[in-house]
């Protein structure tokens, strides 16, 4: 593969990277996202890099179309047909409330009750028919929903994971009367027990399928009009790609694909630079995303939720969002204590320094007041605000109640903000069974690199890795991602009752389905990689652990040993007396695309001959020990292999990096910045 484009649409910007390996060239574009039709922004970005579409080998696209449609409830009208007695499953949920304390709030189900119909049919948990499908009733129900103007249809029957025969027959009947192809079969989206989560996933798929279908058609039309004749690949939440030809079938897989791209880029970059174990930290304006990578493989989960009442239980890269970002507000609470976040100034009014009318100090304002961000950057905002004004507001709002001056107040905001973020990162890591000290911190996003070194110190993380191009990490994730399809099937049997031939049959069926899908999408892949794992627990437990499986042939004793080992590593407990249960089997079918090299990201041409020559000036910057005159470097000019000690500020187009005085930085051979945080400085 020689010429490939990755294009990621984010909330504010559409980022694009064109990698031309033969020419050793990389081109980058950043254009405003066009919210109504993201295709315009994509075409504009392609235009900006002067990308000749007819000469491209592949175009990989990350889109927020489906995520936004769900969050903003701009979804298609869909109907649902389900087992008699169970139409309220997606409205009743699992008996939860939005918050542990406080009894307010709620959610609207994706399919309103009047569009949820029931038919006579019933399977039991063993997949045996208790009541046959009422075919005439099924047809009538589909006709009613079509006549009610539904654009898509969900068929969701109880225990269909155990036996999908009724769902499939119902879909055949529906196809005869449904005006389009938008019929979602619940068990084809998730083939696991848990009727609420499976039903919501099916409803999510149906609600966004027509939206995604329309968007992809518009984009492919635009692309072919400009001469593009190769594959359009679309990013999925599992960190892999899928051909645009079939992406809408499982539209749900594109939800939350943006954060997944970032983690894929981190995994690729980290492994390349000798850091296979990485915690990713993408700090944005209102929230930050945290992901975990072990041995170069991103952690995945099938238990994420987009918001309250919307679990998305398909396998995805496990990215946890924490409620802290540059726009997090600093407030003095009723107890007279300073709190930073989770309330955010958002994009409007945003931090005071954006000049959009914000009056309440944020983390970004504190960074500015402390010289960590370049005050000259204020000139580029909407309505220039003076640094003095920002400092005055910080002194008034935060300083006065606490008896601090502007410096002290800004430092307090920064310290408490960092403390909170570090605590949240730690919990994300612990909840997944890992000690953060065993990882490197990979920071990206607009504000991640600004805080990363201080956060690493707080978390006792020894190394910070800041990629060459932190602002386009997601687009890079698109370029490096492979084609990937995940399959999960419930088993739910104690080991002593398990027939290992069944295990093999399930895994082989998953492989066959994956191969068939990759063949159908017609994307050129160099090799097929199969990753199997089992979800297991001890009998009577609720939590499950993932146990890697070497292949389709698994011995019972080996499986038991493997599980006990994983369990012991996690909890330091041995429970010989209790029977393990195989809950589900999972297979990832990965089609490797040609490997790309990120060497060209380093852009050696622009680099200076020495660290000193990369220095653009100096300014006063606040650190825990006080103000320091601090050299400022232009990142693009720092020579490869350069090493220097903090304090330092490194600026580049889309981010600023602060190297704390105790740390030392090194530019590696592909332009990543590797920061060593000495033990004495770690918290």
């Amino acid at each position, binding site marked *: 593969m020689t010429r490939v484009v990755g294009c990621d649409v984010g909330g504010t910007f559409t980022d694009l990277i064109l990698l031309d390996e033969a020419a050793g060239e990389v081109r980058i574009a950043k254009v405003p996202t066009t919210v109504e039709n993201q295709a315009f922004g994509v075409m504009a970005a392609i235009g900006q890099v002067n990308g000749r579409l007819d000469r491209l080998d592949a175009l990989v696209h990350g889109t927020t179309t489906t995520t936004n449609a769900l969050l903003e409830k701009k979804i298609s009208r869909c109907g649902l047909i389900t087992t008699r*007695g*169970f139409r*309220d499953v997606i*409205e*009743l*949920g*699992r*008996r*939860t*409330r*939005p*918050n*542990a*304390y*406080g*009894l*307010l*709030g*709620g959610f609207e189900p994706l399919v*309103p*009750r*009047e569009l949820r119909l029931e038919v006579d049919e*019933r399977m039991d*948990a063993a997949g045996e028919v*208790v009541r046959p499908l009422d075919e005439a009733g099924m047809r009538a129900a589909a006709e009613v929903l079509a006549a009610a103007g539904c654009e898509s249809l969900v068929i969701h029957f*109880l*225990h269909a994971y155990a036996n999908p025969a009724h769902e499939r027959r119902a879909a055949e009947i529906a196809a005869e009367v449904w005006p389009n192809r938008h019929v979602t079969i619940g068990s084809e989206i998730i083939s696991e*027990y*848990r*009727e*609420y*989560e499976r039903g919501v996933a099916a409803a999510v798929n149906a609600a966004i399928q027509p939206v995604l279908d329309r968007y992809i058609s518009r984009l492919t039309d635009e692309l072919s009009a400009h001469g593009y004749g190769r594959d359009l690949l679309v990013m999925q939440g599992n960190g892999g790609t899928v051909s645009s030809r079939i992406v809408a079938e499982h539209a749900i897989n594109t939800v939350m694909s943006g954060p997944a791209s970032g983690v894929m880029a981190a995994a690729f970059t980290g492994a390349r630079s000798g850091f296979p174990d990485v915690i990713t930290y993408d700090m944005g304006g209102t929230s930050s995303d945290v992901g975990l990578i072990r041995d170069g493989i991103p952690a995945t989960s099938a238990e994420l939720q987009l918001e309250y009442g919307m679990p998305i239980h398909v396998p995805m890269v496990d990215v946890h969002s924490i409620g802290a970002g540059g726009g997090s507000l600093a407030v003095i*609470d*009723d*107890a*007279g*204590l*300073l*709190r930073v976040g989770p309330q955010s100034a958002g994009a409007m009014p945003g931090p005071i320094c954006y000049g959009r009318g914000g009056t309440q100090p944020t983390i970004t304002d504190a960074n500015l007041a402390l010289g960590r961000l370049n005050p000259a950057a204020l000139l580029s905002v909407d309505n220039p605000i003076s640094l003095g004004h920002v400092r005055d507001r910080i002194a008034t709002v935060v300083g006065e109640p*606490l008896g*601090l001056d502007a410096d002290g107040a800004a430092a*307090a905001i920064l*310290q*408490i903000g960092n*403390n909170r973020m570090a*605590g949240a990162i*730690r*919990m994300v890591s*612990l909840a997944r*069974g890992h000690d953060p000290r065993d990882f490197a911190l990979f920071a990206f996003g607009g504000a991640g690199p600004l805080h990363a070194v201080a956060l690493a110190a707080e978390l006792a993380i020894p190394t910070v890795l800041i990629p060459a191009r932190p602002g386009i990490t997601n687009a890079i994730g698109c370029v490096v991602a492979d084609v990937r399809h995940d399959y999960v099937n419930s088993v739910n049997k104690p080991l002593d009752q398990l027939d290992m031939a069944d295990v093999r049959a399930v895994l082989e069926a998953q492989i066959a389905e994956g191969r068939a899908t990759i063949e159908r999408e017609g994307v050129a892949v160099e090799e097929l990689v199969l990753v199997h794992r089992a979800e297991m627990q*001890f009998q*009577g*437990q*609720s*939590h499950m652990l993932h146990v890697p499986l070497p292949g389709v042939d698994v011995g019972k004793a080996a499986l038991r040993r493997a599980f006990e080992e994983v369990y012991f590593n996690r*909890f*330091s*407990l041995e429970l010989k007396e*209790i029977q393990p249960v195989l809950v589900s089997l999972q297979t990832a079918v990965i089609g490797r695309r040609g490997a790309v090299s990120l060497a060209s990201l380093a852009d050696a041409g622009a680099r200076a001959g020495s660290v000193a020559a990369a220095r653009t000036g100096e300014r006063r910057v606040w650190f825990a020990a006080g103000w320091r005159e601090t050299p400022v470097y232009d990142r693009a000019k720092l020579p490869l292999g350069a090493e220097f000690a903090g304090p330092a500020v490194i600026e580049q187009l889309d981010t600023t990096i602060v190297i704390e005085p105790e740390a030392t930085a090194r530019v590696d051979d592909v332009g990543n910045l590797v920061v060593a945080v000495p033990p004495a400085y770690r*918290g």
Partner: protein
Amino acid sequence: MSRDIDPVTLAVIQNGLQQVCNEMDLAFQRSAFSPVIAEAMDRSDGIYHRDDGALIAQGEMGLPIFVGTMQYSTRTVIERATNLAPGDLYIVNDPYLGGTHLMDVRMAKPFYYSGEIFCWLSNTGHWRDTGGAVPGGFSANATEVEQEGLRLPPVKLYKADVLDEEILAIIMSNIRIADQTIGDIKAQVAALSVGEKRLTALLDRYGARMVEDCIGEMRTRAAQQMRAKIATIPDGRYESVAWVDSDGVVDAPLKIDMKIRKEGTELYFDLSGSSPPCKGPMNSVIASTRSSIYLAMKHIFPEVPINAGTYEPLHIADPEGTFLYARYPRPVSGCAAEVSQRIAEAVFAALVQAVPDILFAAPAGTSGNFALGGHDPGTDKPYVMYLFTGGGYGGARDGDGLSNGCSTIGISTMQPVEVLEQRYPVLFERFALSEGSGGPGRQRGGFGVDYTIRIRDGWARASMVMDHGRFGPQGVLGGADGGVNRVAIHRDGATYVPPHLSKDQDILVGPGDVIEVSTPGGGGYGDPWQRDPALVARDVGRGYYTAEQAAAMYGVALDGGGAVDAAATARLRGRGAAAE
């Protein structure tokens, strides 16, 4: 302040202590066996003062009802502790010593730093069984605590880090499913070890003296914060009454008489007019009674952090001589799950009169505890199926109540029907929204749940401890009550309704028999005749109410197409308006 504590250090240490507790919660939950702990999160971990057990910090993921009980529990351990040494660990589940019911087993451990006790670490976990008349401990008709299970006074389960095998043997010989409970015990002990490790790191970093000073300061600040919130409530007296259906033994309602006086920054709670102690298991121990009030206040002001200071402005007179101050040997298994929710309901119902903009009508307020114990011929093994269901929440100024919300004292999720049918020989014929159950109001209550279980195979006995069968959750400010809890068992063409409506025990059921339950809806908020007619039409379109109910409950008439008939509605509502 005892000495100068800079505001940054104070906030950082507060976060640090909170983090220690959250990490204990996480460790406990992740390795627990009991689904009640691992899935229902029926556990809590915290840090307590070395002298009196006063709450310093408690995990944010703990079960809400434990916000107030654990400091009492820890205090009773401290009072009785002798010959303490590092590595000692107490176990206790005596309800009368700062507990709730027997199933909530507490562990408490002195935390040593530099050779001195710095504080105590404690946790509570709901064990699946502690012996007694019925599996799981919720006997609907126990009359003495001995029938409810094994009662442990504070005893050292570990002495200097060594497990006392003899005490363990006593416990194991007196409970059901002992083999799985050992996993839970290990998880509960391990959680406290996580706390020790993290707390040691915090003290190493900031120094014991500084952390000590910050703890004192945090307590003062939390009290200040709670007082600031209370100050927003107008001075005055606010009264309410809430009813528990029956105690499960004597078929008569139990009255909770709540009188709240707000004066300045303080709240005074008087429950002395409540019913006397009862014969059945609906008595509440004082720790549980107090905790229910704390919990209610936390639901009203969720942003106030929890430590002993938070409770300083809440003055609760001991309701001696009532069923809310149970003494040995009164049975108490219903106090944490049911009576606590009714006490909270009484707090809401009283204070909504004072601050209607932030409060809400009554939530369903029952844990809907249903147990089916029998023999499964398929596996030739005995089984016990527990089912806890939610109900509707009350309407509030800004919106309708949630449907199928969790009990107010819990945060757990319900097991899927598909899992229940895998594990037990039952078939659910319905699991549906309980139409019409949302209490009418300008903002209506949320809906309860209707479920129908058919026994497929083998004989079993059904038991239930529910509530609100006699009286629906209260509507407020002119809103109507939510629908009541209903239970019916259909056998051989006959229908059996429990005499106490919501509580019964050991009802024999066999193949083909059907158990039908409806859980309560939430109370309505404000005059239903002021509800936007378009919303009423929407609700009828969704089948939440019938057109007849819309006319009778909301004064809204619909045309043949289901749209609002404005003229007819005006006529219906005109009558209401004229009456005002």
